[in-house]
């Protein structure tokens, strides 16, 4: 999942006609002051980092004039908010708030369709809003969100009747972003009703699908590793094929007294080069042993074995290999020829790795 920065999310919404506060992106305190000058009124200076609850973490500051905006930007730029370095701030006009609402479109995994959520209690984490205060409508993914569904949801959420058509326009715009950019979540929180009776998207979150970004929205695709990789803090390197088996291997290492250093899933159909890169990647960590757990299906054990033997000269960390499944005998034979006795029993392999890790 790719979480866009607030300003990127707002640009997508504005393109679809959702009103957003006047403002701009600043990379220096001077730029922030200039934007505040142009706005000519109280502003808010917001750290652009891909994490939630920035306000609580000190990432959102208020400023009444350009000098204060410069100071706020100075404080935020280069600082860390929930572990993320702030490289840009968004300087925006402060809007007069009459009410704060919530509206989002997300994937409902259980129902396997998009769902529109509307609540009159915006401005707080939606998880904190009681269920009965949130109106939900499931959307047919083939037909898309229809106007009357959005209006009905607005009324169910007790949005004042005269504002239901405006909320419908916002919801349909959110759905267009959701659909066009293959989003997992498009959220406006709060959607502010101003004292002038206008709706303004004061904060927005857009999360995109990694696979879709790679195929269809390269401008948002992040450079990823060859394989799913998560660093943990132990000293036993973990390589397995398949997410479930990799997680189970980590659970077993933990249960049998060891500390996993990482999660690395080589996926299905790994070739020798990928296995080699995986081992070299884990070897970069400070590990005492690398446990390789392969259960061949679409992955062939002989290919895995070829990958393992190709790194023996470059890696001096002990390797514990457990190899069963498709082309198992051939894989075992290749390893044996290079002095590696592979395990077939998982428990024995995990115990061996834990023992070698000390």
């Amino acid at each position, binding site marked *: 999942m790719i979480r866009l920065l607030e300003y990127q999310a707002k640009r997508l919404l504005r393109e679809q006609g959702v009103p957003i506060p006047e403002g701009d992106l600043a990379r220096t305190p001077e730029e922030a002051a200039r934007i505040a000058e142009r706005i000519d009124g109280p502003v808010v200076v917001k750290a652009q980092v891909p994490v939630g609850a920035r306000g609580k973490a000190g990432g959102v500051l208020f400023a009444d004039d350009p000098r204060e905006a410069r100071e706020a930007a100075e404080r935020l730029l280069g600082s860390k908010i929930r572990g993320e370095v702030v490289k840009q701030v968004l300087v925006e006009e402060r809007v007069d708030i009459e009410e704060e609402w919530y509206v989002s479109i997300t994937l409902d*995994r259980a129902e*396997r369709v998009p769902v529109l959520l509307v609540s009159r209690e915006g401005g707080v984490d939606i998880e904190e809003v009681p269920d009965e205060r949130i109106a939900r409508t499931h959307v047919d993914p083939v037909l898309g969100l229809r106007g009357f569904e959005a209006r009905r949801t607005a009324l169910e959420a007790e949005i004042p009747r005269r504002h239901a058509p405006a909320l419908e326009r916002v919801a349909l715009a959110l759905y267009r972003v959701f659909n066009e950019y293959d989003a997992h979540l498009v959220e406006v929180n709060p959607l502010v009703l101003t004292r002038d009776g206008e709706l303004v998207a004061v904060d927005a979150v857009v999360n995109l699908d990694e696979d879709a970004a790679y195929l269809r929205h390269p401008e948002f695709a992040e450079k990823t590793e060859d394989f799913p990789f998560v660093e943990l803090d132990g000293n036993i390197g973990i390589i397995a094929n*398949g*997410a*479930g088996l990799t997680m189970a291997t980590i659970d077993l290492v933990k249960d049998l007294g060891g500390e996993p250093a990482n999660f690395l899933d080589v996926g299905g159909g790994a070739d020798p080069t990928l296995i080699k890169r995986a081992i070299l990647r884990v070897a970069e960590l400070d590990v005492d042993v690398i446990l390789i757990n392969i259960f061949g299906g679409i992955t062939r054990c002989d290919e895995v074995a070829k990958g393992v033997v190709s790194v023996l000269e470059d890696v001096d960390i002990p390797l514990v290999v457990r190899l069963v499944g498709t082309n198992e005998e051939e894989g075992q034979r290749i390893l044996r020829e290079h002095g590696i006795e592979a395990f077939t029993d998982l428990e024995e392999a995990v115990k061996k790795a834990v023992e070698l890790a000390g």
Partner: protein
Amino acid sequence: MIDGDTRVLVQGITGRHGSFHTKLMLEYGTNVVAGVTPGKGGQEVHGVPVYDTVEEAVEETGAEASVVFVPAPAAPDAVMEAIEAGLDPIVVITEHIPAHDTMRFVELARWEGIRIIGPNTPGLIVPPERTKLGIMPHHVFTEGEVAVASRSGTLTYEIVQSMTEAGIGQSLCVGLGGDQIVGTTFIDFLEYVREDRRTEAVVLIGEIGGNAEELAAEYIVETDFPKPVVAYIAGRHAPPGKRMGHAGAIIERGAGTAESKIRALRRAGADVAEKPWEVPELLREYL
């Protein structure tokens, strides 16, 4: 759902994985009658005729079900072509299909009353019929009375092998797939096996992310599910907020933890194994 006579079509049969696994499916006993790869009609793969379109393949061979190996960019179109031709079930092996595409073809299949298995699944195997639609290494399976459903491929092989070694065979094994949106859920599976005469007990292999296991637990309680259920949940030591390989395997905002799933299943009366090899021990009490 399928038996040894089901006439199976392989979409993407001329690709590396499609061709390799067609051979293995044939060896096991699956009745693979046709393949489709656009532009390669007229060829043969392991003696199976290749057609340019699904429609042609169905007309010529009477294919009834499909296994899709087509790479992600073209896979949604391949699945919709199979839906259009009325194939059922459609087993989607392909990984990395965008969730929006999956949502649309799952919905279209629902309109037509067609079952989609996957995407990102190792497929479906029915050992008593010696037939499989997918990539499961069939030598670990043996005929028996336990039906298995899983969100993970290789972890399933691991557990099934420990069952087979303990002399406990399988009536059916379904990979539900590792994506956020999948066509067949634990509930669909439980609904199918509750009436299945061959099945005496059920194994559910879950993992962190989403609430499919919790919903299955609710279903077990609410419908008074008549067969014993043994489960294993992977990811007890997974950190929150990190995607563990599968698109669907992530603890988000405190939801989708292994603890929550294990608690829900235990409350529903299921036996939950701590280690994969404990599954056969727990099953033995019921067989």
